[in-house]
């Protein structure tokens, strides 16, 4: 690439939940009054990879997120990690169905591409909350870009991107001609923690906004609910080292020794 790589990363603002995910009384949303927000683990790796690739090849890493204006918080986190530019796709809503999400992102990417088309578009394989496994594919398909998901290795060179994917029975390798897209998974890299200069730079950086009001798609959430929690408490086998004989009795019963 003569003037470096133009990398675009799409991230989603998701609740950072602990051991149990609280819901609003109407069951339509996660109750986030007492929760923080974060970028999903797969997408954090996508940001790290974009920053790494631009460090290696030169160019620019742009991070993009669709949602309400609050997604600026996650965009600034990605800037603090080293992304160069942030784009907020203001959909006015914190949860769109996957077709609508893809339409909003697709519209924004097309607008950005009119100025300079991306060489590589990275997505998380699936979002950490809704987990629809399809927004990246829909966006890439709309833009005419090849995309493969489940990616745990990315190398760019000679006008192609080499992708490695782990599946149940082994590894698969793909070589896509650029421009291309990929859905990445945690384990691709170890995302950095933003340092202080990064955080200060991110705080002052401008966030470019594109407004999108996509039509809803055909999948509608009726309500969310907690899975039945059958936790009745464990059988207590004792405290400390003294519990060892009881533990080994159980291992014996379970047939694992």
């Amino acid at each position: 690439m003569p003037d470096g790589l133009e990398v675009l990363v799409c991230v989603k603002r998701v609740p950072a939940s602990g051991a149990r995910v609280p819901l609003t009384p109407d069951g339509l949303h996660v109750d986030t009054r007492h929760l923080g927000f974060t970028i999903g683990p797969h997408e954090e790796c996508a940001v790290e990879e974009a920053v790494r690739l631009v460090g290696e090849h030169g160019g620019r890493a742009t991070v993009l997120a669709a949602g309400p204006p609050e997604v600026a918080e996650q965009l600034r986190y990605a800037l603090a990690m080293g992304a160069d530019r942030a784009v907020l796709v203001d959909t006015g809503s914190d949860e769109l169905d996957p077709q609508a999400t893809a339409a909003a992102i697709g519209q924004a990417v097309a607008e950005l591409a009119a100025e300079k088309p991306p060489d590589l578009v990275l997505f998380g394989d699936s979002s950490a909350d809704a987990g629809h496994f399809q927004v990246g594919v829909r966006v890439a398909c709309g833009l005419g870009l090849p995309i493969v998901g489940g990616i745990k290795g990315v190398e760019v060179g000679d006008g192609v991107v080499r992708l490695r994917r782990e599946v149940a029975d082994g590894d698969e390798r793909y070589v896509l001609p650029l421009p291309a897209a990929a859905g990445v998974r945690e384990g691709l890299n170890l995302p950095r923690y933003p340092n202080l200069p990064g955080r200060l730079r991110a705080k002052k950086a401008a966030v470019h906004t594109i407004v999108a009001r996509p039509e809803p798609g055909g999948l509608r959430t009726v309500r969310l609910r907690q899975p039945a929690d059958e936790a009745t408490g464990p059988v207590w086998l004792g405290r400390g080292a003294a519990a060892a004989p009881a533990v080994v009795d159980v291992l014996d019963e379970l047939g694992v020794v």
Partner: protein
Amino acid sequence: MLLIVLDGTEPAPGVLGLAQALGGPVHAVAFGRDDDAAAEIAAGLAKQGVGVLHTLRHPLLGDYGPEAYGEALAQLVGRLRPEGVLAAGTDHGTEILAHTAARTGLPLATNCLSVTGGPRWQLTRVRGGGMLLEDAELDAPVKLVTAAQGAEAPSETAVRQECTVEEFLPDLPQELARSAIVERTPRGGGLTLATAPVVVSGGRGVGSAEGYAVLEELAGLLGGVVGCSRVATNNGWRPHSDQVGLTGTKISPRLYVACGISGATQHWVGCMDSRAILAINTDPDAPLVQRATYAVVGDVHEVVPAIVAELHARGVHPDG
């Protein structure tokens, strides 16, 4: 008519279960199989109540490629206009349906546990690997659905019938060759996290990379492997390939031993299908302790060596 996408040479149990719940005639689709292979697959499908096997044939369907597979299936869907298309919620099953959805403009509901038919399908899908369930409504001329790992297998025995083979030749642009697999490396033999009968996992309570030595020893005695929580991966104590959880590996061993793991939801959804869980933790109120089958309150570095010593005292040795 429902169209099911085969997972290899047969339908995934959850896919058949959803098809049975919806009712009506079932057809299946396979990619790039020759006549002999198709006849063999059809013979198996006949016993499962599948009436027609559609084989998609094209030079680009020789090895897996998400775009070529997704486009070929989209063309078959356009020809057959089934009421719905069901696939397994596996890496390839989900990806093929996502490409078909993108190319047809149809909505797609992934990871469904149950589906009720009608003009609009009412379904329950798994979010975040099992953290939450979502009741949703799918409204489309052709409904695209993937079955979650925990979707129920068919309850009744299917009525045996003839399964005929019909060939379909999609018209695929050569450019879709760009996303085909270029190389495949099978996983080496031996136990893996996904297949081991026992997994001994460590989290924050293990404290260091060196701290896992005693967990390795216990796993060795039980014929199992070592896993870890996300904290351990993030601290660089263990590689990501050892991570149990939503963004790591989902496991279902006979016994899961969780050492010093509090059990954030992201970890729980990765181990909740274990047949038994033994939690070792200093905090008796930790979520994973409360959800475990058995628990020991105590420090990992006191309890695990004592278990290893007790196993040795009872004559248990590696390979023995």
